[in-house]
């Protein structure tokens, strides 16, 4: 009789030997099979089928739930990305448009042959009684009252007030603005007065002058404030009334004051002079 204390050792050793024997026997067999193996597979099949059928719905729901969580997270991430890219795009587009405007201003600057200061419009008040705008350049940059202000489209107005770093510009459409001008086609000299929202009107154009709608109106250079030849606008309409000695002429300003963002202040003295 085997002592009890050795029974476990013998049993375990026998099991290990059996396992090694099964493994080595099956390693020599290229095909996996055998009665017991088939029995286990057959016995497990209904159980596997049953479990899989019952958990399939649960599995689908679980996968869908995990998928939806992922989708929601991805959706949130993509929305954030779209928002970030949209902001970036807006910044780039702004930069591009600013570049275009500044290029036009630069071209204008090259045509003027005067020293100029580029300024950004920081406030405009189109509904106010006085048609003015505020620019971010002042006396510290050489801006003085009375200096003309132009944009790439034409004459904007003149500086009426300056501070160290800020100036106020009186627009040519302000009722108090009067500029000596020429109608380019007929060379008729006149005074251009602001007319608020209506634009400007030309005063003192004798009826003997032949003025056509669409004729450009430019500065005459006689007042000493504005150089000759700065574009102001075009003739919009002419009223040839019988009773008066002069034409009643409406002028459309060349500048769109509502959309002005950058302007040039023309400084006294030629370019290259201090």
């Amino acid at each position, binding site marked *: 009789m085997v002592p009890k204390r050795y029974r476990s050792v013998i049993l375990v050793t026998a099991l290990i030997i059996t*396992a090694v024997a099964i493994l080595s026997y099956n390693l020599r067999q290229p095909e996996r099979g055998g009665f017991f193996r088939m029995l286990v597979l057959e016995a497990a099949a209904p159980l596997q089928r049953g479990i899989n059928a019952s958990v399939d719905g649960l599995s689908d729901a679980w996968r869908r739930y995990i998928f939806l969580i992922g989708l929601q997270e991805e959706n949130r991430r993509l929305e954030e990305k779209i928002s970030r890219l949209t902001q970036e795009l807006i910044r780039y587009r702004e930069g591009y448009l600013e570049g275009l405007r500044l290029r036009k201003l630069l071209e204008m600057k090259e045509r003027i042959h005067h020293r100029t200061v580029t300024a950004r419009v920081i406030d405009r008040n189109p509904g106010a009684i006085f048609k003015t705008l505020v620019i971010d350049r002042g006396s510290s940059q050489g801006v003085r009252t009375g200096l003309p202000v132009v944009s790439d489209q034409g004459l904007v107005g003149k500086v009426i007030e300056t501070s160290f770093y800020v100036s106020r510009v009186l627009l040519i459409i302000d009722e108090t603005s009067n500029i000596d001008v020429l109608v380019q086609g007929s060379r008729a000299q006149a005074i251009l007065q602001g007319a608020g929202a209506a634009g400007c009107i030309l005063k003192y154009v004798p009826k003997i002058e032949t003025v056509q709608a669409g004729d450009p109106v430019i500065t005459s250079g006689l007042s000493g404030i504005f150089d000759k030849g700065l574009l102001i606008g075009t003739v919009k309409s002419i009223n040839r009334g019988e009773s008066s000695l002069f034409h009643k002429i409406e002028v459309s300003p060349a500048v769109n004051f509502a959309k002005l963002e950058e302007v040039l202040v023309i400084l006294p003295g030629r370019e290259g002079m201090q």
Partner: protein
Amino acid sequence: MIFYLLLPVFSIFLIVFQTTIPGILFFDKITIELSLILVIYAGFHMGALKGGLLCFVLGFTQDCLTGAVSGFYVLQYILIFTLSLVVSTKVYAAKVPFIMGFTMLCALLEGWMIAALYLFINGMNVLPAVMYVIVPQALLLAVLSPPLFHVLHWIEVTLSHVANTRPAQ
């Protein structure tokens, strides 16, 4: 006697369960080898005959249902069972950190044995690939082992109580 009769059915049920349910929960990324915890428990709390037979049947079922060569898991389970049996004679295996540590060690040992057998049988070194599966599984099994030991102990006590009280009735 009922233990030996129910053993094959229980083994099939356990292996089918452990290959199906965790696969759904973890998208087949991690398997939870509950049978390994049962093998370790058998080494600590069951006798050589009962435990050895349980490991043999569990290993064989695992071989059949996972498509491994017959004897592949049988050998591993019996070796781990033997290790647990030997350790149980030296250490009082009831403390949670010990159960967790030992389970983790056995899971890593099993992974190493799988890689070694693969190398021996197929001449392929699958250890680096196996590590990605074995290490998380070892950690998971280590966490699960104390509550499962508790449940298995409760089942064992209940079954023995039922077996002892039946003749009296």
